[in-house]
């Protein structure tokens, strides 16, 4: 590769890539949006999990709760076989 080729590549690269302005700043403050996203993620994940859980699993969970409330004496037996 001679000097002419290097100049040619340099010109092509400069033409392809826009100049970077080192002093440029975003048009708005991104920090509050990042904080909102961090705060929203756990609840969003829980909501997604709740949406993806089939009704059958909810019914099973409800049945377990109803049984435990109706027959609390069986809870130690249940825990023993856990």
């Amino acid at each position, binding site marked *: 590769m001679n000097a002419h080729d290097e100049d040619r590549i340099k010109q092509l690269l400069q033409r392809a890539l826009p100049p970077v302005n080192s002093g440029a700043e975003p048009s708005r403050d991104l920090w509050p949006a990042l904080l909102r996203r961090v705060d929203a993620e756990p609840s969003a994940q829980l909501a997604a999990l709740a949406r993806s859980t089939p009704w059958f699993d909810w019914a099973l969970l409800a049945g377990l709760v109803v049984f435990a409330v109706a027959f609390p004496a069986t809870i130690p037996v249940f825990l023993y*076989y856990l």
Partner: protein
Amino acid sequence: MNTHPYLRAYLAGIFVTTLILPIILTVFIVVRLVLHLPVPIERGLIFPMALIPAGWGLWNMLWIASHERTHLAVGVHGAIFPFILLPIGATVAHCYGILSFGASSATWFQALQVPYALIVPLFCCGVAAYYLVWKYIIGSLNSVLGIA
């Protein structure tokens, strides 16, 4: 991340029980030693404290080993486990004197009487609980550890 899949399966399997059983043990000790409840809980602790965690780990290892052939969902695989645990647990509990059989009910810890008619629904609840725990907790752990 494909090394030692059975070790990771064992660790994922014992996660839930090693997390919960110390809490249950604490409650049992408080009930027995602090509140002086005349119930021989300590006789039967060998089953939940020693056998159950290892059993969960081994059961998860078995799922990893058999999944290629059976394609069984991890929740269904976990729901099968009570069918093995119940006879073992009942035998251990009976041998240590914490389970006795009466005319119309079984008695745990010489205090808790459960009618025979209630044992089948109780067992079904156990199967349902195992299904949910294995599907959502053990399954997630298997994914996190890269074995599912």
